[in-house]
């Protein structure tokens, strides 16, 4: 789904049906399990995720290999567990980075206006006009595949969305009395932006970090699915799916397990993001 899950859909989010307590609890559980697996992978996984065993070869799920093995005898269960790491680290870096860049640039553009605003917004317009994932495919593919490069490229492509939202929220705050007062007191622009305006726009920008996480997880796994980003044989969900999709007839679990984990994790993150949005929006209304 990639760039469609991105925050430009502000309008659609406002009227979203809040998730039931059960769905919400389930989402938190999924995320908790993924974090646990990522941290404790070596302790939980029964086998080395990269160890090939050509004697075993391709097997269907059994008591020894819970998810079966792939064509070179690697344990799919252990690989799925280790995959949680890639699914967490990259998207986390992108979500945090985009939050940081988006807030700094958005506040600058909205508060300072003028040339800075024009320059930042032209960059944002350019990024909005292009299909993000295609740009990422071309850039990562041509510049040389590496996971770090994929993360950096996606960060550059994601932060314009945050920037635009923060700028809009800042423009709404700028004429308010407290900003006026801070200016009259002669506080420096930095202080007004980061100490006074920033906490007030947080309810708008924080939920976006969750959406960005889900978006980046999907985008990163798409890149590795296409063979861009992580190397062949990596225990990464997108890569695993690409390598075992031809085994659908022999051991379908090898493809369905990593695929299911991507969907579960991304959907849970989206649901939690919606919930955070609702919570913070309520607080804003009460104030």
């Amino acid at each position, binding site marked *: *789904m990639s760039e469609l899950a991105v925050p430009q859909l502000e309008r659609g989010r406002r009227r979203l049906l809040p998730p039931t307590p059960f769905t919400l609890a389930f989402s938190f559980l999924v995320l908790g399990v993924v974090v646990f697996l990522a941290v404790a992978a070596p302790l939980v996984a029964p086998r080395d995720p990269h160890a090939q065993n050509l004697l075993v070869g391709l097997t269907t799920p059994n008591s020894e290999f819970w998810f079966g093995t792939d064509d070179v005898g690697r344990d799919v269960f252990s690989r799925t567990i280790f995959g949680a790491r890639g699914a967490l680290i990259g998207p986390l870096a992108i979500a945090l980075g985009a939050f940081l860049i988006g807030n700094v640039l958005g506040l600058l553009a909205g508060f300072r206006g003028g040339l800075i605003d024009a320059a930042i917004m032209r960059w944002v317009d350019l990024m909005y006009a292009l299909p993000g994932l*295609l740009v990422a*495919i071309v850039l990562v593919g041509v510049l040389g595949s590496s996971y770090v490069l994929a993360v950096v490229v996606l960060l550059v492509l994601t932060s314009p969305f945050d920037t635009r939202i923060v700028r809009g929220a800042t423009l709404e705050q700028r004429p308010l009395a407290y900003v006026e007062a801070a200016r009259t007191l002669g506080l420096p622009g930095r202080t007004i932006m980061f100490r006074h305006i920033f906490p007030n726009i947080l309810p708008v920008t924080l939920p976006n970090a969750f959406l960005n996480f889900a978006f980046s997880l999907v985008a990163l796994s798409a890149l590795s*699915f*296409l063979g861009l980003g992580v190397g062949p044989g990596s225990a990464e969900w997108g890569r695993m799916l690409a390598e075992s999709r031809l085994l*659908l007839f022999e051991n379908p679990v090898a*493809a369905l397990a990593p695929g299911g984990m991507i969907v579960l994790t*991304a959907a849970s993150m989206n649901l939690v993001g*919606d919930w955070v949005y609702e919570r913070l929006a309520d607080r804003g209304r009460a104030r």
Partner: protein
Amino acid sequence: MSRQGLVLFVLRRLLALAILLTTVSFGVFSLLYLAPGSAEQVLLAGRPAADAETRNEIRERYNLNDSFAEQYALWAKGAVRLDFGQSIRTGEPVLTAIKDRSGLTIFLGVYGFALAMLAGVSLGILSAVRSRTSADRGIVMFSIVGASAPVFVTGVFLLYAFAVLLDLFPAFGQGEGFLDRFWHLTLPAVALAVGGSALVVRLTRAGMLGALEQDYVTFARARGLSARRVLLAYAFRNALIPVVTAGALVLSFMLTGAALVEVTFALPGIGALLIDSVNFKDLPMVQGLAMVLATVVILINLLTDILYLFIDPRITYSEGTA
């Protein structure tokens, strides 16, 4: 908006489009120098370091002896005439390769787009009308999961369910003739549509909920108009703007999604061509595809903005907002 205003608006947007395309083309051309290794190494694409003669020939053919600006000018001149040079991998002209492959992708994109809009709009309206019932809950859940599922995951799950378990659809191949192709491309198109419709559901539902609260809907009901007429001619007509917004996004999404779906289902379309070329480092082909795809997306956005004007005459693009 007056006719004159419309013409002015379109002219201004075309100017912006020209600037945008120039910027993009500059970036696309620079790929040659951004790629690791010298330009001639890139254009040799992994072939063993050739003798001096071949290298000179390469430098000559791609004008590498000129300055960067001159090279760009020459490349851009070709690009305007859709001449992107020859593929390093196959030696055929880039444009020919793109033309040969585009039929499949257009078929797939249109099929997926139609499915996504049809399913998305009807589910969106249904969930707004049955707001806060279990039907609504189910549809909203579908849209969240659909939006979170990458097309290649949906594709693999569909393959497993309908080609492996049920054996209803072919797993691979693109089919001969229209009907057979239609049949072969159904699973890929559904995979694209699941992702696309999720967004349409969200925006249609929100738009319809907003429209159904309006006084004119209450009045239309009070006047005894049929439920169907109130829903479609009054509420949906006024919720059309977000639907068109969603439509434009879905159309661009079909292009991106095509790359993933074509790889998943082993279909030789434009998307698969891009991935093959990127992996082979076939730079002329990548540049050509990038320019064509970027142009298509930018044109879709322009057409959407013009479409808004016809749907909602109240919208005017003044200096400030355009």
